[in-house]
């Protein structure tokens, strides 16, 4: 389902955005880069893309890629309906949405589930860091159960699994990746851009700043040994983005997070069949039990008509229609008046 690389008349620069104002080392920045690369490699006309986001650090990122694409940085948790409405205006446009885990799985849960259920054709990326970055590190709905954060205490809930939520809402394209695995991220985005339907990509994207589990190694609480946590600290030490080297399908890779905790990335096997929704659910459930983060294209079904397909719309974009097409003639009104007399 991935398109071959095409000869493009655009340079990579044509896909760039403004300089990022996110933290140095934030996973979100690396995802922006891959969106740029994916669009470049597909040779998409930048004007044919529309960007959407909610509110959060993640939702700021559409400013940092595809300057020549329209975009709407909307409301917290409400990206879904905004994108849906816009994409009816000209159905030849590609929608790329970037949301956060708080934005999608906490406040935005309802909108997300219903957008997916409608099979609205667009790419829906969740930059998933388990916290609310922009409001300074509270738990989001994807935070691990038992996670302890300074100020917030212990998280008592099991995390929302965004990929599983998408599957259960009958998504037609579901993938998971890790921000530090740029090649996979890029390939999945390219595949998603080529899919006619909702394409959900849940990307684990570490927050360098607020994964400050109290007392863990490298936590920016400045070392237990010194017994001197910097209270109400506003200091964010510069960090590097976490990157993994390319690794094999089917293998497992350990990744150390900024707070010192370990994450087990597992790439889907080479022969995994992503057209079986049932398998996808099973493998996710499996991964949960094994504490793996399973990455790759989990599910795809290109057969289901997209929402737009069900609407019998003309080729010509609705937003270019003339008064002649939009306002019935006066004889029609005469008929109506007669009918109501």
């Amino acid at each position, binding site marked *: 389902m991935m398109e071959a690389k095409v000869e493009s008349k655009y340079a990579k620069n044509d896909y760039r955005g403004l300089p990022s104002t996110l933290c140095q080392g934030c996973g979100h920045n690396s995802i922006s880069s891959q969106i740029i690369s994916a669009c470049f490699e597909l040779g998409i006309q930048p*004007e044919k893309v529309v960007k959407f986001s909610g509110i959060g650090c993640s939702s700021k990122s559409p400013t940092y890629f595809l300057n020549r694409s*329209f975009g709407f940085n909307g409301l917290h948790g409400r990206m879904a*309906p905004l994108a849906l409405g816009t994409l009816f205006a000209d159905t030849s446009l590609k929608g790329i949405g970037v949301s956060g885990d708080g934005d999608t799985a906490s406040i935005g849960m309802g*909108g997300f589930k219903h957008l997916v259920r409608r099979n609205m054709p667009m790419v829906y990326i969740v930059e998933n860091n388990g916290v609310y970055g922009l409001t300074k590190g509270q738990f989001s709905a994807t935070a691990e159960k038992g996670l302890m954060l300074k100020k917030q205490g212990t998280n008592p809930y099991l995390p929302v699994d965004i990929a599983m939520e998408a599957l259960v809402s009958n998504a037609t394209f579901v993938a998971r990746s890790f921000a530090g695995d740029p090649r996979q991220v890029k390939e999945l985005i390219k595949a998603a851009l080529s899919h006619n339907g909702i394409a959900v990509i849940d990307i684990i994207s570490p927050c360098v700043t607020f994964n400050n589990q109290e007392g863990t190694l490298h936590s920016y609480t400045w070392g237990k040994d010194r017994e001197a946590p910097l209270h109400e600290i506003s200091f964010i030490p510069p960090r590097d983005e976490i990157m993994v080297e390319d690794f094999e399908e089917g293998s497992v890779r350990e990744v150390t997070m900024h707070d010192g905790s370990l994450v087990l990335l597992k790439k889907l096997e080479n022969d995994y069949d992503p057209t079986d929704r049932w398998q996808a659910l099973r493998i996710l459930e499996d991964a949960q039990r094994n504490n793996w983060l399973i990455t790759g294209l989990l599910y795809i079904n290109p057969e289901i008509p997209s929402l737009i397909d069900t609407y019998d*719309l003309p080729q010509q974009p609705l937003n270019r229609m003339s008064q002649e*097409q939009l306002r019935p003639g006066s004889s029609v009104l005469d008929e109506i008046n007669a009918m109501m007399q």
Partner: protein
Amino acid sequence: MKAQPQDIINDFCITFATVNGSGSQTANNTILRALFKMGIPISGKNKFPSNIQGLPTWYSIRVSKDGYLGRLEKDDIVVCMNPASFENDLAYLNPGGVVLYPDDFKQTIQRTDISAYPMPVKALSRSADISPALRDYIANMVYVGVLAWLLQIDLDEIHQALNHHFRGKQKAVESNFSVAREAYQWAGENLKKNDPYRVERMAPLDGYIMTDGNTAGALGSIFGGVQFVAWYPITPASTLPEALIEFLPQYRKDPLTGKNTFAVVQAEDELAAIGMIIGAGFGGLRSMTATSGPGLSLMTEYAGLAYFAEVPTVIWDVQRVGPSTGLPTRTAQSDMTMAHNLGHGDTRHVMLIPGSVTECFEFGWMAFDLAEHLQAPVFVMSDLDLGMNQWMTLKFEYPEPPMDRGKVIWEEELEKRIGSWGRYADVDGDAIPYRTVPGNLHSGAAYMARGTGHDPQAHYSEDPQVWEINLNRLVAKYYSAGDLVPQPIVDVLQGAKNGIITYGSSDPAVIEARDILGKKGFNFDKLRLRAVPFTSEVEDFLRSHDTVYVVENNQDGQMAQLLSQEFPALAGRLVKVAHNDGLPLSAAWIVESILKEGE
């Protein structure tokens, strides 16, 4: 006991007391249209419960040769099909009034100052050629027939009305009509008329049609070129989008391709509905939703975004009684202040306020022109009375001006402006910037819309001055709407010192009240608001009257509040004449209140 009074012709109120789910709507509409067809001004108001089956419901038809369409507080004739409400219904009858009821009711009638006609409903409906499941339904045709005989409604008109109702489906027309005719005959043979009420044919109401405001609003929107509708069901707004769903496929196929030039999405809730239409508005579509109080509440945050990001869209608020879920099936004008400032921070919106079903049509298309011209959400403030009741109303007129798509620029125009253009740059000094929409393929067309602070180039900005300049422009834009919105309708008399301001569905009662007051020697000039922001006519009107009564159907006197805010120096002249109990205002109440205030 009862004196034989003089005939009362074309001037009374009939109420049908039934049970909801019993199908009486067909019968009531039949009478209503038959009267209308006879040239008699009428209006029909449904007072129904917020459930689906089994509770009392009332339908009142006002017959008024003088053309008054407001609510009357008491009935002259009551057709009572519901034993549960019988006693209460009788209490609402004026002295000399009439009651029709099925002859199997157990209750006895205590009042002696009324005429009572029992009807053999069971017997007559059993005789009809009708499946047993539909007997209860067809029973309603019995009262249609009896009433026709009693009031001297032409049976032919009943037949035509049924034809209209069933859109010519003969089988349905005939089986209904046969029952009505039989009942008519039964009445002729068995009843002795001993009451004064009857109708007489008048000159045909040629310039008029009969329909409801929600249907009119939907049709107006269709002629306004609506392209995208998102909605969530809520009484009393639902029938507007449902009319769109019905009519759009009929009237809005692309003449060239036969494809749809529109899309309607039933959203998962109102937060999504408004999100969708704002998305569509941003995309360059004429978009709209319709909702009522609870839905409007949920739209608060998004409304503020549309104001601030300058996205055109149209929001119909078909108002019902709040606070909270309140009385979902009763009418009010009580979201006025709320809609005007919907959103946190400093937000204000343009509102159109139709005062008739015809204006629902007119403002239906006009709202899009305004929204796109102003690049702002426009609220159309209707209500249950206007939206769901049947009104005799002026024929719809074809929109005269061409569509105003506002300052949307496409590739070619943009190319000329490159250099000076910025999405939020006020190049013309009219507070309205030029706008590009997605799909514009010029490489300089794109911008990032946002609800956060931004500069004229749409770039994120926290600069205090950039913020304030932008906000001040938005206010200037808002006020500039004063030249575009429909002007108020001012009716000035010779030498009236005092005035009345009203709006929306309260107008019919005010028209009548003003006539009554005039007859009592109290003259008032009148201004009917049709939009906010207030135009200069409003200020002039306030300035030129000592006391101005603001008549409206809510508790707080919300329009009076908005006027006080806008014209503090003149606020001392305002007197609130406001109340809401879920029913449309009556002329009697207005007269009484104004006289009391004037004491």
